[in-house]
């Protein structure tokens, strides 16, 4: 498929090359291993392929069929049709990385728009063009901090309320570095907020990493933590849910040095975990240590304003083994989607959605907490996610919920053994009052069993 050559074309081309058949092109490949027979299913027509893929898709139960209260890093939000209609333009999605700026101004200016919106949303001075996702963005924050102190500071203070998968990713990435990660060891008190991290910050600390709202949904003022980190010259990195920043004080206002985040809530489909969008923003003073692509404004030789990939000397293809990261391909099309989403919702729409999430989540939380046997695990302020202490196992409850057409919350025992029977519940603008009432009813039934 997708090979346009006729037999006559092929023969004419072979003749020009001066060989008689295609096999002659592969004489450098060891004969003993040449042309293996591949055991793959035979090719299908387009019509048959689409039918097969529809069967696969239909074998899933989806958030369109189920009332979804599952979050934990990926959220079921409304994605306006406008987002997909823009990223589906061939001019955007079939273009390469904009290394040739004269024929890539569309992508370049869109990235510049993205950088501008992310800087505004996070309250930071500069954003890169994206990382892979929220997890690798945090890992890159550690690399920035480590490079900032030229490897002389080895301590990473890590909140236990940072997404467990982000903490795992960060550890995989830092396996080659002599760093000491403290703060999230097994058995640490989870009820305490960011103040518990302050005692761990010392003169050897490169970076303090927290999540906002944290993995349990809680929202804390980070001003004191930033001050404590800065007293010893350490950096503060904050991993955010960008939707929450439609409502809440952005980390830049607390004094954060790096803001990372998972951009999926900004109009990207859940799509079983990807492709998503790694947000990375920082202060100008760290821009030369930031990994990833960056677009800057300049002029062309006709005097016009134009955009170009800049500070490329930081990057792997120039700096080679001295680069702080090997990132090359990023999530450009997802960044474009988020740009369209942020511009479409704009100043007022993003606030409206964030408030809807907030009100619905608080209604759900108070309704659930009123049930006998259930209570809220924390009384800290929260955005759209909260932890519910349940009278029985979350697995058991979720099985009941699924039977009733509800995708229940996240079972925290998977990552925190001390939080058996604790469910992390996410509520978005997509959850109607009927959905929430159904959730409440089923949980009440379960406790009455």
């Amino acid at each position, binding site marked *: 498929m997708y090979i346009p050559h006729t037999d006559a074309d092929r023969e004419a081309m072979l003749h020009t090359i001066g060989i008689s058949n295609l096999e002659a092109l592969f004489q450098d490949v060891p004969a003993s291993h040449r042309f*293996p027979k591949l055991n793959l299913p035979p090719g299908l027509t387009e019509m048959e392929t689409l039918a097969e893929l529809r069967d*696969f898709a239909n074998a899933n139960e989806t958030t369109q069929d189920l009332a979804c209260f599952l979050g934990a890093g990926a959220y079921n939000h409304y994605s306006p049709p406008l987002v997909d209609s823009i990223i589906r333009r061939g001019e955007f999605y079939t*273009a390469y990385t904009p290394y040739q700026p004269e024929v890539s101004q569309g992508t370049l200016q869109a990235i510049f728009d993205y950088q501008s919106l992310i800087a505004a949303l996070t309250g930071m001075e500069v954003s890169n063009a994206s990382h892979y996702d929220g997890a690798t963005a945090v890992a890159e924050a550690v690399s920035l901090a480590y490079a900032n102190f030229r490897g002389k500071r080895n301590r990473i203070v890590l909140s236990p309320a940072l997404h467990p998968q982000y903490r795992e990713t960060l550890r995989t990435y830092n396996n080659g570095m002599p760093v000491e990660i403290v703060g999230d060891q097994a058995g640490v008190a989870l009820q305490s907020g960011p103040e518990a991290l302050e005692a761990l910050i010392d003169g050897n600390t490169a970076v303090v990493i927290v999540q906002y709202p944290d993995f349990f949904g809680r929202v804390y003022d980070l001003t004191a933590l930033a001050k404590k980190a800065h007293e010893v010259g350490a950096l503060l990195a904050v991993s955010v849910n960008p939707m929450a920043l439609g*409502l809440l004080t952005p980390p830049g206002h607390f004094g954060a040095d790096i803001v990372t985040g998972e951009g999926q809530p900004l109009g990207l489909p859940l799509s079983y975990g990807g492709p998503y969008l790694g947000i990375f923003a920082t202060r100008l003073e760290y821009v030369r240590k930031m990994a990833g692509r960056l677009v800057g404004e300049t002029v062309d030789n*006709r005097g016009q304003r134009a955009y170009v990939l*800049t500070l490329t000397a930081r990057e792997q293809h120039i700096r080679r083994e001295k680069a702080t990261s090997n990132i090359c391909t990023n999530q*450009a099309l997802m960044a474009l989607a988020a740009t369209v989403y942020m511009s479409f919702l704009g100043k007022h729409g993003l606030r409206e959605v964030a408030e809807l999430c907030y009100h619905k989540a608080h209604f759900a939380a108070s309704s659930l907490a009123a049930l006998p046997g259930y209570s809220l695990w924390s009384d800290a302020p929260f955005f759209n996610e909260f932890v519910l202490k349940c009278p029985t196992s979350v697995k058991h409850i979720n099985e009941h919920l699924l039977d009733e057409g509800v995708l229940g919350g996240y079972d925290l025992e998977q990552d925190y053994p001390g939080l058996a029977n604790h469910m992390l519940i996410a509520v978005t603008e997509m959850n109607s009052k009927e959905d929430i009432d159904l959730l409440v009813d089923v949980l009440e039934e379960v406790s009455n069993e």
Partner: protein
Amino acid sequence: MSEPLLCELSVSGRQAIRFPEPDVPKAELPALLRDDLPLPELSEVDIVRHFTRLSKYNYCIDQGMYPLGSCTMKYNPKINEETARLPGFTATHPLQPIVTVQGNLLLMYALQEWLKEIGGFAGVALQPAAGAQGELTGILIMRAYHAARGDTKRRKILIPDSAHGTNPATSAMSGLEVVQLSSDPRGNVDLAALRAHADDTLAGLMLTNPNTLGLFDENVLEVVRIVHEAGGLVYGDGANLNALLGIVRPGDLGIDVMHFNLHKTFSTPHGGGGPGSGPVGVAAHLVDFLPEPLVGILEPGDDDTAPLYGFIKPAQSIGRVKSFQGQFGMLVRAYTYMRMQGAEGLRQVSEYAVLNANYLMAVLRKSYHLPYDRVCMHEFVLAGVWPEVPDVHALDIAKRMMDYSLHPPTNYFPLIVHEALMIEPTETESKQTLDAFIEIMQKIAEEAHTQPELLKTAPHITPVGRLDEVKAAKELVLCCGVDSPD
């Protein structure tokens, strides 16, 4: 060209979308409220026109040939975009119970199995987000393998000068010491240099084969043997796999670990820079170190029931390299493509990709210097310089191509060819398209000699001319409305 920025288009009081009033009682808003949300205020039509106008400033595959060497800019089939957007896929949450996402897991399992078969590997992990992350994953696996054997002094990684640009940064990120290997006059790994480094400190070799000259290493079996005998492992950079589908399986050559680029070889779009997808394949002795999660069969099926697919964690896994299961939407696109090709179709992909490259090379060598005169694989490298017109550079040729509505090839890479023009046509370009490309390249070669100013001042017809890159880096304007601090 003058398209305003989003922030410049903003008009106070404008709003494109409204959401329903809450159907629940309102709660008291939190104390940590932001006082200002400085996002633009636009209408839907403002936004549609802004991005539509911007899109017109882009070159793209849908418009024409995109001969970027080592980037494999093949046509991106439209059916891929359809299947990846089926609501049954897009509306599934990554943490749903496995019984509710058996369609997703079956697709991922099949894709793992097919990539194993195509690459000749014992295990494949789909999680890595892109080629560079696949490389990092592979190198971490190699390190973990040596560490598990107590072989801790292996800190040296060899990288040929014809390898991909990300390789050195990947190795350094993994805490390894990078040693560059030179190429021999035929573009192969220099065996003498390799032998000199093949000692008990060798962690491994990162081999791009075919390399960035587009050449298949004539001594590949010997290269692999030398590394293995020294106790090292061979990493295969799979970015150039488009030359090898059904031609040779890297695993059969003794490659221990390799990443696949689904966004090159298997037709998923490049998206203006991403997302990609970089699954990693490994030989049997490395399967236990793969990142988690892998998709496996938890309960075998029989005639009446399908197997139950779920996640498994390899025994000595290096851990996860990102959140969730990988770039699932890209996996759906790659699956769609592979399902349509079958084994026979995939072999044809590589045969015709290599045919197209050799055809271009056979003709263009008459007008351009060809530094390595051998049968090439899916790409080849010309030198964009003529001794009689020393002022004309590869960059000028590249920029002049834009005046003929063509995207230039990769230039100045690989570094081992002076003034490199690295050309990869891919199999999806017809003879007629290639002939048109040849004609333009010949015309530019002629112009270089007769009217070099045309090249030096190119491009002329693009939305913008050559850019002041020094100003961009020096004055640093990186977002709207913020002027340089200097």
